[in-house]
């Protein structure tokens, strides 16, 4: 009996200890959880107290981004990643190996657009872009690629470096502290001379005030251009650095370079053609008014223009601009790093960062968002293809008419249409979103370009019908076309 009682009480005792053990274990788990939470909160609070640590003193002359990077390691880290070469459906770049030469030490380049689409050689016939045009690489390569592009076979002006380098301190040095004066002197230099004054691709100082880190405009061409544009909109004496909102600045800093421009006059002064506005017909009206041409087309003799990456202009016509979405919202979206919210300085295609770039506002699956973008880009690209074909036909017809003996005066109307169509097509071709920045506007521009080609051909037909020197020749050409 007694023996039985002991074993019973013993097992009850063991059961009790087991219960104690379980409760202790649970209490330990709760403690671990609470401590983990506590430490996490502690860490975040600490981070939030000091948005950055001033390790080095930055001045308005500190060009080297690595020095800025000591104070802002997170931003600098992402800035450095613009070296990445990733392909998107219609843009981005592939890293193609090449054998470095004495003249061009690059061991990696992007793919050639000219090889990809030989029509571009005809489009730019007689101009340096027909020598070498490649897909654009990230910001990290801008200086290198401008220095060693095959286009350097023709003398290039120093003005290229207004945007292909961190040029702010060079302006200051040349202008004895006055960037406007420095800008004028810089433009007038030949490329090789100007190249000696710059060292880095676009860097922190080009967009940020070293004291406050606020965004600021450092490019005189934009300061002048936006003043003209605002004056036209009814805002006199617009001073962008004083009057732009923070959200506008998140677009304007990019628009200092991602715009259509030309080099004005003997001094090659970088100028934005914005006095009539920034829609394509307004830009062309400016060029016509000022008699601007980039070169005479080698096959037709038309005084043509090269459009250059008009991202700001096309974006301005689109729904994102209208909704107040800035360049940085999609190309440098905010990211969370601990308690910090920082702009991703790895500037790149939003298609490579859909969840941050798009899904912040559009809560649909990534695949759906990509499909929407690709639908726009596929359509734009198809239209661009047709427009290029139409232009190739017009160029061939003008050349035939010229060979048949028609002179400049007789061809004038067709040449005017060539100039227009060429600029319209190039505007979308050179723009880096394949229509996405403003789909309807891109389609309108390409449709009008096709119409210009049609009208140009109609003018040639009229010329032939009017009994010029070559009615027979043109008629036989047409018969061949049919």
């Amino acid at each position, binding site marked *: 009996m007694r023996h039985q009682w002991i074993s019973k009480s013993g097992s009850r*005792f063991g059961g009790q*200890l087991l219960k104690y053990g379980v*409760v*202790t274990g649970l*209490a330990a788990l709760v403690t671990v959880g*609470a401590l983990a*939470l506590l430490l996490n*909160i502690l860490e975040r609070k600490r981070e939030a107290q000091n948005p950055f640590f001033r390790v080095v003193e930055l001045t308005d002359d500190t060009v080297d981004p690595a020095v800025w990077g000591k104070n802002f390691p997170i931003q600098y880290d992402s800035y450095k990643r613009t070296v990445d070469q990733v392909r998107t459906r219609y843009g981005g770049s592939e890293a193609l190996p090449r054998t470095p030469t004495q003249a061009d030490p690059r061991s990696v380049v992007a793919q050639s657009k000219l090889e990809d689409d030989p029509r571009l050689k005809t489009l730019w016939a007689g101009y340096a872009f027909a020598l070498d045009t490649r897909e654009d690489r990230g910001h990290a390569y801008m200086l290198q690629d401008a220095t060693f592009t095959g286009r350097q076979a023709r003398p290039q002006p120093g003005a290229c470096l207004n945007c292909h380098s961190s040029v702010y301190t060079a302006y200051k040095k040349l202008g004895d502290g006055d960037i406007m004066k420095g800008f004028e002197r810089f433009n007038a230099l030949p490329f090789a001379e100007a190249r000696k004054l710059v060292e880095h691709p676009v860097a922190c100082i080009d967009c940020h005030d070293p004291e406050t880190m606020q965004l600021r405009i450092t490019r005189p061409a934009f300061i002048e251009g936006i003043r003209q544009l605002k004056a036209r909109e009814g805002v006199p004496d617009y001073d962008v650095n004083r009057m732009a909102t923070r959200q506008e600045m998140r677009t304007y800093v990019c628009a200092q370079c991602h715009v259509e421009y030309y080099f004005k006059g003997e001094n090659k002064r970088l100028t934005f053609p914005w006095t009539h506005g920034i829609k394509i017909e307004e830009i062309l009206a400016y060029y016509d008014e000022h008699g601007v041409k980039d070169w005479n087309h080698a096959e037709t003799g038309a005084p043509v223009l090269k459009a250059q990456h008009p991202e700001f202009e096309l974006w301005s016509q689109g729904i994102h601009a209208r909704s107040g979405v800035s360049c940085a919202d999609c190309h440098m979206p905010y990211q*969370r790093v601990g308690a910090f919210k920082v702009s991703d300085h790895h500037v790149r295609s939003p298609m490579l960062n859909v969840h941050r770039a798009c899904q912040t*506002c559009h809560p649909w699956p990534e695949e759906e968002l990509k499909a929407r973008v690709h639908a726009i880009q596929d359509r734009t690209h198809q239209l661009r293809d047709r427009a290029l074909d139409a232009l190739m036909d017009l160029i061939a017809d003008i050349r035939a008419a010229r060979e048949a003996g028609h002179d400049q005066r007789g061809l004038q109307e067709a040449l005017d249409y060539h100039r227009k169509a060429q600029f319209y097509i190039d505007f979308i071709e050179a723009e880096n979103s394949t229509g996405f920045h403003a789909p309807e506007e891109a389609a309108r521009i390409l449709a009008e370009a096709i119409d210009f080609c049609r009208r140009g051909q109609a003018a040639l037909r009229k010329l032939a019908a009017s009994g010029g020197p070559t009615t027979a020749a043109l008629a036989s050409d047409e018969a061949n076309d049919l």
Partner: protein
Amino acid sequence: MSTMRVQTWAGIAVGVMIGVALGTGAYTFLYARGYSYLTDDPDACVNCHIMREQYDAWRHSSHHAVATCNDCHTPEGFVAKWWTKAQNGFWHSYYFTLGTYPDPIRITERNRRVTEEACRKCHADIVHAIEAPAGRAFPARDRLSCVHCHRDVGHMH
């Protein structure tokens, strides 16, 4: 050692552990301003940094003057409200501590239903005119979603 003494020591050990858990929990609660979560003050929702964007956007939104976070993100009724608060409090602590959550953050299905109901709570007159009567023939999941179109009334993003 007698059974009694073992039991006593074990009891003390358990007591200490529970005490440590309670103490750490209480301190964390105070340090994290846990008490602020017992209020309806929207500032409590940005104690941590995760919802700063939503909070900032709410301050600019059309509903800023008429609704706080809890008006839309907790259901009606004492039990339902505090159960929702407790649930969200736990999962927020859990995921934000471990860092395993998608960024930008996404509302969960349950919380989305809560906000849907909140729209209907205040805008009943309009919604009744639009919507089919509730019931077996029209299950809740087939109803129109208010926030599908009016996403940005509370806060963009």
